[in-house]
């Protein structure tokens, strides 16, 4: 087993003007499952490929078990990788796919057979050992790809969006299987995904990247509760945090014509002027006293145990929403969900409010 260290690692692709990965520094603990998450083009896959040795490193160093691996070929790094589309050898059956790396390593046939059988048992692939990849379902192929990594007993597992080709139901089932398997095997694992739900549910820690720059790395709960900037706040959480521009005044923060109270310690830390207000869907409720933010319901998503209202703010404040969705999202009890088109007032639970600098996006803390 091993630790993994990215030490100021950068990668700039030929003819590119910006760095795909920009001075990434990250310590990954032994046996930890860390998830790299971010939107397309944020540098998460490049970071993974540099660790695997499939991509050159332009600046910085990568250490596995305290030793630099930059001069080592992929095969010498003792790292196994599960790729997005599995990349199984189409001409080999499942048993040969699982045992290929061991054959290359010139292990004895009996040992290869035993290790393949053991992994097939763990992953419930015993009945499919003679089949070619084309004769397997998506989920079975995914398990073979996992098995191919496990059978090598490497120091580090790398997984590049291994669930992205599965349907939603299988994805949910498989992500918990992978997390459980990783804990059982206790192998340091770097997992890449663009799906923040996957990241939050699987990772011991989650590293959020944007434009090649590491934004924040923390346990899932802290990322949700205490994002360091508006990007992380908006990216982590489903539905996303409501981000809306407001103006700090003596009474609190003014959004349109509505003044919302700001917790006293936070009020002391922020000066007068424009700020970005962050409100989770559960930090907003429905009010009926005329003191809330007026809005019109444009969509209601009923999920059984809860419902989400997507509401357009009234004309006086519309146009200042900063998130990806122009609607304000509110979590409500499905029994009291208003109808589409009805006028509502939004009540903000002030203690849950986050403030961010309008220019830099950095969170303002007390």
């Amino acid at each position: 087993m091993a630790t993994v260290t990215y030490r100021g690692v950068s990668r700039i692709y030929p003819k590119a003007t910006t760095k795909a990965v920009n001075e990434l520094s990250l310590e990954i603990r032994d046996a930890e499952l860390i998830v790299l998450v971010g939107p397309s083009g944020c540098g998460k896959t490049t970071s993974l490929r540099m660790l695997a040795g499939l991509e050159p490193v332009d600046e910085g160093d990568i250490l596995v078990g305290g030793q630099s691996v930059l001069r080592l070929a992929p095969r010498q790094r003792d790292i196994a990788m599960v790729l997005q589309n599995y990349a199984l050898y189409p001409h080999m059956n499942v048993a040969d796919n699982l045992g290929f790396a061991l054959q290359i390593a010139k292990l004895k046939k009996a040992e290869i057979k035993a290790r393949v059988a053991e992994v097939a048992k763990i992953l419930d692939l015993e009945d499919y050992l003679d089949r070619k990849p084309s004769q397997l379902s998506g989920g079975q192929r995914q398990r073979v790809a996992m098995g191919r990594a496990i059978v090598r007993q490497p120091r580090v597992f790398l997984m590049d969006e291994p669930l992205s080709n599965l349907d939603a139901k299988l994805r949910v089932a498989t992500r918990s299987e992978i997390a459980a398997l990783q804990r059982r095997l206790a192998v340091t694992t770097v997992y890449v995904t663009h799906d923040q739900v996957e990241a939050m549910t699987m990772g011991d820690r989650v590293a959020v990247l944007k434009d090649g720059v590491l934004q924040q790395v923390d346990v899932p709960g802290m990322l949700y509760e205490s994002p360091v900037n508006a990007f992380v706040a908006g990216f982590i959480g489903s539905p996303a945090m409501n981000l809306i521009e407001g103006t700090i005044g003596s009474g609190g923060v003014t959004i349109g014509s509505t003044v919302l109270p700001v917790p006293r310690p936070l009020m002391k830390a922020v000066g007068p002027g424009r700020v970005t207000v962050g409100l989770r869907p559960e930090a907003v409720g429905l009010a009926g006293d005329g003191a809330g933010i007026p809005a019109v319901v444009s969509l209601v998503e009923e999920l059984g145990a809860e419902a989400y209202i997507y509401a357009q703010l009234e004309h006086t404040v519309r146009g200042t929403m900063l998130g990806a969705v122009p609607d304000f999202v509110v979590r409500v009890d499905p029994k009291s969900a208003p109808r589409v088109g009805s006028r509502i007032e939004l009540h903000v639970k002030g203690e849950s409010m986050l403030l961010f600098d309008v220019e830099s996006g950095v969170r303002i803390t007390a």
Partner: protein
Amino acid sequence: MRPRGSGYLFVAPYVVLLIAVGIYPVGYAINLALTTFTAHFAGLKNFVNVFHNPEFLPALENVAAFLAIWLTALIVLVVGLSLMLHSMDKRISAAFRFVLYLPAALAGSASVMLWLFMLQPGKSPWSFVLRWFGYHSLGDSLAPAHLPVVFALIAFWSGAGSWIVVMYGALATIPEEVLESARLDGAGAWRTAIRVKLPLIKKWIAYMVIGAFAAGSQLFVEPELISEATGSVVNQTWAPNQLAIYLSFRLDNFNYAAAISIDLLVAALIIAAVILLRTGLFETGH
């Protein structure tokens, strides 16, 4: 227009050409092969007579020797070179492929003339090599025992470049992720070529063998031109196709010539069928 209808429209020009210059002439040849010159049914008599022609079996042996050398060289060298080029830097590989393809741009007759010059001791830039082998005249270079090798050389030189382009295209269809997996699994360039790339281009190799066998069994231009250019050094019935031409246009026996053509066609079809069955060339997916 429905997809099925448009599909027929796309293949229609090919089907017309196939019937006009493929199926109909084959039918005509079968008819000729099974009849006498007076247009009476002859059964397999023409085939038996051709078989007993003293020049038929030697011609068949000549082409068999040529095919054995040429097909072996084609499979080993074309596949080997393609695998090597596929492992190289892309720009260097492209330059090599261009250079290797250049001879294919020459007409077949031009290639033969070039090789006649190359094999002529005293005129060839490689005269010292020819003399080192003990060849002092064109007759030495083109001794009967050398001819299968000489024709294989000419055919390989003028045809290998095209097949390398085809084989490289086949290698380019292998997903990059599969090759990266092989790297991560510890396979170096050699093992990746043998264990991963080669099995994945098996169908293209089969296609090359079928095409090359069909073309090689029809060998005509090289022996005919060398025969014309050298007088008596190479005889005019060295290959079965030459014999067919000789029988039809010199002896006016088109029925025997048709029987030879059908023999060659059947041989090519048998080889193609065996390869198709062994390699699953027409199977879809993996």
